């Protein structure tokens, strides 16, 4: 294992040991903070149930993320193509992110019911923003000489977009996508807290009411794992879609 891997792993392991010792030594009451081993035991005990709830959350998050990314992508393209649209939409898009997710979720449940739709809509609302903003910034940062070069070669607007703008914005797009991926799981869970029949948020609400904090922590662990999984998936996607960056990184 390389040094840059050892340090974070050792840090997390050390914190877990300290946490375990603090719980076992009675420094923190067990009903307030379960020991890591108790959390793992709860995870194993409820594995089937948690897996079923996780599947619901993952479906909501992925559906919302896909729609959010498409929406963000289209918005960024339109804003890049038509400056007047960028001027009109920029404040609205920013304003949409100042409203807390937790405040919108009950309204969505009220309007759209307790099914999958309000959760997906909430994930869309939280995930389109990072993609739209980062991609638009990527499009805007393209070297104007590159654009002039394309003009001298007689390129159309669509050709310039495809050959120059899109690849140039790939870095920013994937940075935004990583943020969106983490927001997706959290957004779905928040929507589930406020109403629903299945999902990690629903599971968390139930175990909180029964004061099963070990299971509560187990679900937090799963939420983190799912978020990391999605981020890793974005990394793989970036690796496949942007091969020239691999070479540039190696050279650095």
């Amino acid at each position, binding site marked *: 294992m390389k040094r840059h891997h050892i340090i974070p792993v050792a840090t997390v392991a050390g914190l877990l040991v300290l946490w375990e010792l603090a719980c076992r030594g009675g420094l923190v009451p067990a009903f307030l903070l379960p020991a890591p081993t108790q959390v793992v035991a709860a995870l194993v005990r409820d594995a089937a149930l948690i897996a079923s709830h996780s599947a619901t959350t993952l479906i909501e998050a992925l559906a919302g993320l896909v729609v959010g990314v498409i929406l963000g992508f289209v918005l960024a393209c339109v804003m890049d193509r038509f400056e007047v649209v960028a001027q009109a939409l920029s404040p609205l898009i920013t304003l949409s992110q100042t409203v807390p997710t937790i405040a919108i979720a009950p309204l969505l449940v009220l309007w759209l019911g307790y099914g999958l739709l309000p959760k997906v809509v909430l994930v869309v609302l939280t995930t389109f923003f990072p993609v739209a903003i980062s991609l638009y910034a990527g499009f805007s940062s393209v070297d104007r000489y590159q654009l*002039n*070069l394309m003009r001298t070669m007689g390129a159309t607007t669509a050709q310039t977009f495809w050959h120059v703008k899109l690849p140039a914005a790939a870095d920013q797009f994937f940075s935004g996508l990583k943020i969106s991926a983490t927001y997706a799981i959290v957004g779905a869970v928040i929507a589930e807290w406020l109403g629903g029949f299945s999902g990690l948020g629903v599971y968390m609400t139930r175990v909180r009411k029964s004061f099963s904090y070990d299971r509560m922590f187990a679900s937090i662990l799963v939420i983190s794992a799912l978020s990391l999984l999605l981020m890793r998936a974005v990394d793989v996607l970036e690796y496949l879609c942007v091969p020239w960056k691999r070479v540039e990184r190696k050279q650095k």
Partner: protein
Amino acid sequence: MLEARELTLAWGDGREVVRDVSLRVATGETVCIVGRSGSGKTTLLHALAGLTHPRSGSVFLDEKDITGEPGHIGYMFQKDLLLTSKTVLDNVCLPLVLRGVSHEQAREKALPLLERFGLGEVASRWPSQLSGGMRQRAAFARTYLMGSSALLLDEPFSALDALTRTEMREWFLSVTGELGLTVVMVSHDPDEALLIADRVVVLVGNPAQGHPATLAGEIDVLSLKTASSCREGQTFELSSDFLEAKKELLELLGD
């Protein structure tokens, strides 16, 4: 033949950059525009490429009016501007692909050119894996594959170190001679201009201070090169004609 007729160019704020410049470049000729930094050389090149509309005057390529119409003349910028997202081969193929040629056909056409330019072995590499000289050669190959009858080069060797610049200059001379290209090049280096060009035209002025640039004169380098080669039997760079021409050029520049 490329011809600029009484071109007057202005910046966006209305200030004139270049005034009444006329230039005629014969087929197969290499003309170098020399001027100080900020004298409007690049602006003039932009106008020849159709990237900017002149305030007055016109640009003709082979008797066709191409004023303000990009896409007719190959333009190599100061920076190589290779797209980092494409391999060297795909960068060079780009002008063909943009014209609707299939990727396969474009690659078939570009590969022999890359071989000729000494880039055959690096065709599948990314631009970041090339040296400065290789990148410039790839950019030149791309400009050439635009297929236009004239090429514009904006200080193409200025970003290179002195040794590579000398190598590139020699390479450029052999390639332009071999391919019979019509070239308009911009430079602020008198030595480079005299060594590369058949004819040097001097642009003088300071547009930023309200003095639009005009053509101060020209030097017929080709006849000097021919004469010195016959008379002294040595390279132009070491001949007395070169020193005389350089003196004349510096005087035109106002040094």
